[in-house]
């Protein structure tokens, strides 16, 4: 076993102590590294770098014997090794990708959970240190208080927020705590892609951002939450009939709010603390939710679907276990905020089920997470992700994947759904023009006939149908699980109407457009 270990590292490691526990520990670390870092990765180095401490210091096996007393000096060598390994991995991730420029304003989305708290502590250390690999960006923190959506009491929410604020204050970075209720008042720009380098967008945003910051001066202006807003937020989430849809909806709303915050405050990068375990779960969830086309964006290191604000996931090389151990060892403060999944059963939602699938498999096959995660690394979006706004989903802003051909699975599903929907009207009805065609053009006629036949559709159904045309496949499914679209935030509805009008207008003038094109070519 020893020989295996040595050859694995391809280094002349002379380990003097043959304590079985020590060997086990090294193997574990080896496994961890093999799992989490790619083969050419600099992540391997820390293990070798700290080797001298093990060799020179007290026998490593005493770590296990003495650690019982708590703070044995030998613990320190293993601890410092782990810390160095962790820090190195974090910085290597940011350094390798060269996505964040020196002096750039970067917003950290901190939920208070283990992963984002570890990220915060890493950024804190990276900026404070006088090491050569110092981080050079200007961080800000944002936390979205989702208590309203989860149905927490006001007192409970205040307690959680004040706990978080205490953590944020010690970090010394400017921070913003925003209640999720604000998502109801977003402008329509939240669901539009803004070109990254544009001069105009930052300008108008900057004005708002500067004003906000002056007012805050490091702390935050307390955005007040009205009870009515909380209620309408709850209504919105309540209109989603399944937990799966609820979670997706919440995720979408959170994303919009984060992007809006980053824009108004002039941040160009948004760091998310998703760990590799979480991303592996997310990958499987995405596939099950019909978001296969958006896998690369949803789980990749960077995601620029919003144009001017890029999502970055610097924690994606860390497994949840590593993070938990790190937080425990170095007393990183975290705040436990219940989520929609808290205390739910295993099969309550697709997200929950994928998570328990992955964690259960991971227990017997420790390379599960890294294998899934490696897969996600290799995925790329075919379209490149830069198409005009009409070609983007209204909710998730990914490019639409619904333009599939007539013989696609999507069309087959739509047809069977239409057939199902029409059954109650009686079988006398003539079949819907069989090819059902490109759904966009025929859907209107379809709607009219349905209303004429007084079928199952309620009064808001047409609206839902209109909305559905603007969504990607997965968001369509989410919408289908919602009892009504009336509770959706105004900015989404307004934008939907605008896009509908635009497409109508386009249809009207399409003839001329074509002619023009032909003429010019």
């Amino acid at each position, binding site marked *: 076993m020893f020989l295996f270990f040595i050859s694995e590292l391809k280094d002349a490691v002379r380990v003097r102590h043959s304590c079985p526990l020590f060997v086990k520990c090294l193997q574990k670390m080896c496994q961890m590294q093999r799992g989490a870092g790619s083969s050419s990765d600099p992540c391997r180095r820390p293990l070798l770098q700290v080797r001298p401490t093990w060799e020179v210091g007290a026998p490593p096996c005493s770590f296990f014997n003495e650690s019982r007393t708590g703070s044995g000096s030998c613990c320190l060598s293993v601890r410092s090794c782990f810390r160095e390994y962790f820090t190195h991995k974090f910085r290597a991730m940011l350094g390798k990708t060269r996505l964040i420029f020196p002096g750039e304003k970067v917003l950290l989305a901190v939920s208070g959970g283990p992963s984002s708290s570890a990220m915060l502590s890493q950024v804190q250390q990276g900026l404070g240190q006088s090491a050569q690999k110092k981080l050079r960006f200007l961080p800000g923190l944002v936390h979205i208080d989702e208590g309203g959506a989860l149905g927490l009491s006001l007192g409970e929410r205040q307690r959680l927020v004040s706990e978080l604020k205490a953590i944020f204050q010690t970090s010394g970075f400017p921070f913003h705590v925003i209640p999720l209720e604000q998502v109801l008042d977003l402008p329509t720009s939240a669901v539009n892609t803004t070109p990254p380098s544009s001069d105009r967008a930052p300008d108008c945003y900057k004005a708002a951002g500067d004003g906000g910051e002056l007012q805050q001066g490091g702390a935050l202006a307390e955005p007040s939450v009205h009870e009515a807003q909380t209620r309408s937020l709850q209504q919105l989430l309540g209109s989603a009939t399944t937990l799966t849809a609820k979670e997706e909806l919440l995720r979408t709303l959170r994303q919009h709010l984060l992007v809006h915050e980053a824009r108004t405050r002039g941040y160009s990068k948004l760091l998310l603390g998703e760990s590799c375990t979480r991303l592996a779960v997310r990958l499987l969830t995405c596939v099950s939710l019909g978001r296969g086309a958006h896998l690369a964006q949803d789980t990749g290191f960077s995601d620029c679907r919003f144009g001017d604000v890029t999502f970055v996931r610097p924690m994606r090389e860390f497994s949840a276990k590593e993070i938990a151990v790190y937080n425990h060892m170095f007393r990183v403060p975290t705040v436990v905020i219940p989520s929609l999944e808290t205390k*739910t059963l295993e099969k309550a939602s697709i997200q929950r089920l994928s998570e328990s699938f992955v964690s259960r498999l991971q227990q017997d096959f420790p390379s599960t997470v890294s294998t899934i995660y490696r897969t996600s690394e290799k995925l790329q979006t075919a379209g490149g992700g830069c198409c005009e706004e009409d070609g983007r989903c209204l909710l998730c802003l990914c490019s639409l994947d619904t333009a599939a051909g007539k013989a696609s699975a999507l069309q087959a599903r739509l047809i069977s759904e239409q057939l199902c929907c029409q059954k109650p009207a009686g079988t006398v009805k003539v079949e819907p023009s069989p090819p059902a065609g490109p759904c966009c053009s025929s859907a209107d006629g379809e709607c009219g006939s349905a209303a004429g036949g007084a079928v199952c559709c309620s009064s808001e159904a047409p609206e839902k149908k209109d909305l559905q045309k603007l969504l990607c496949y997965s968001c369509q499914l989410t919408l289908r699980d919602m009892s009504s679209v009336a509770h959706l935030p105004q900015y989404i509805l307004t934008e939907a109407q605008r896009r509908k009008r635009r497409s109508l207008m386009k249809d009207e003038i399409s003839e001329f457009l074509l002619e023009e094109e032909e003429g010019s070519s």
Partner: protein
Amino acid sequence: MAAPVSVHLEFGGGAELLFDGVKEHHVTLPSQPEPWGMRQLLVWIQRNLLKERPELFVQGDSVRPGILVLINDADWELMGELDYQLQDQDNVVFISTLHGG
């Protein structure tokens, strides 16, 4: 006959929600014929400390996958998992790494 063992239990990462939100427990395990191991400890926790939804904490005779167990700050996988014999003044930590605790 094993002597009573006093251990320090800690729950984190959301696992404490199943224990009325109490993170730290100092407990003394009563003396019993066979020595106290992790297997017995889990049963004892389930009977005496766990307030709700045992299926979210234990699965079979082990902890639910996704809950990390540290014995004296070392991963319990290194210590023999369920077969580890508890010593007096041991420190056992349960951290949930699952979403939502």
